[in-house]
């Protein structure tokens, strides 16, 4: 039996080709899942008795909103590792996750706004869930702006990691906002502790889209982290050789 030395992949030089392989497979899986998810959500799933067709926005809105929070948690996790272990690659992973997290936050806010108009009669309200999700977007932007403002990458790693970790407090606020404040946004449609409050087809479509968003995030983040590795380790001897590698 051969054992794999996982610690080896903590070095950017060995991680670079592995990330390329993984990105390709996760990208293919995401493409297959998004086709299946859109088919279920936009064709197979029946019209909602109360909301008509507008409810179909759920198939992009909920997966994007989940991913916006999940990616922040993962990003903050890598920030914690990079602060405590002073690991280069962890900071690069956090750096690579932020733009995709911000992207899903924008999609969640945009699709939610377009759903709010037919469902509630307004594109926007200063509801607790919406406001805390908007703050999440500002946290992503703040993290990226702070990184951008500091020239020394190692100092940028530390400063932006602290910001990301402080911002973690916003995640439970987003998640529990619909319970803590009784404002416009509806409660959770899916919970681990109770039966889902929706038809099986709708749930299936939403979960397939959620996995598509997850695999897409992995693929695009791994591709971005490869670029970040090359940008930051430019002067290391291995980079010139690996730059041409798939």
């Amino acid at each position, binding site marked *: 039996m051969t054992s794999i030395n996982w610690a080896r992949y903590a070095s950017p030089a060995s991680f670079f080709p592995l990330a390329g392989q993984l990105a390709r497979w996760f990208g293919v899986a995401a493409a297959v899942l998004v086709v299946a998810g859109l088919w279920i959500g936009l064709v197979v799933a029946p019209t909602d008795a109360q909301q*008509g067709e*507008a409810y*179909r926005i759920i198939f992009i809105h909920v997966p994007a909103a989940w991913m916006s929070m999940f990616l922040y948690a993962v990003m903050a996790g890598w920030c914690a590792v990079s602060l405590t272990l002073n690991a280069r690659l962890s900071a690069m992973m956090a750096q690579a996750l932020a733009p995709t997290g911000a992207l899903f936050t924008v999609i969640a806010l*945009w699709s939610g706004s*377009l759903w709010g*108009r037919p469902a509630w009669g307004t594109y926007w309200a200063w509801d607790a869930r919406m406001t805390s999700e908007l703050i999440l977007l500002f946290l992503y932007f703040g993290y990226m702006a702070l990184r951008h403002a500091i020239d020394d990458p190692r100092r940028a790693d530390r400063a932006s990691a602290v910001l990301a970790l402080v911002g973690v407090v916003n995640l439970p606020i987003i998640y529990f906002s619909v319970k803590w404040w009784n404002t416009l946004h509806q409660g959770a449609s899916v919970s681990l502790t109770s039966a889902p409050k929706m038809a099986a087809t709708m749930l299936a479509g939403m979960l397939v889209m959620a996995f598509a968003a997850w695999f897409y995030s992995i693929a*695009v983040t791994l591709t971005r982290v490869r*670029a970040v590795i090359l940008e930051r380790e430019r002067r290391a001897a291995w*980079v*010139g050789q690996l730059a041409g590698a798939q």
Partner: protein
Amino acid sequence: MSLAEYFAMGGNGFYVWGAFGMAALLIAVEIIAVRARLKAAREAARGEDDR
């Protein structure tokens, strides 16, 4: 149901396609941007190697 009826989404076509369309657009832009960034980083790294 006709194709036109399908795209009308019961009068909610603007909202449904606006939501999915923007998501598709942003994701397409991200894929193109990330690929371009990796390509540029590869070329820059090769340049350093030649010095």
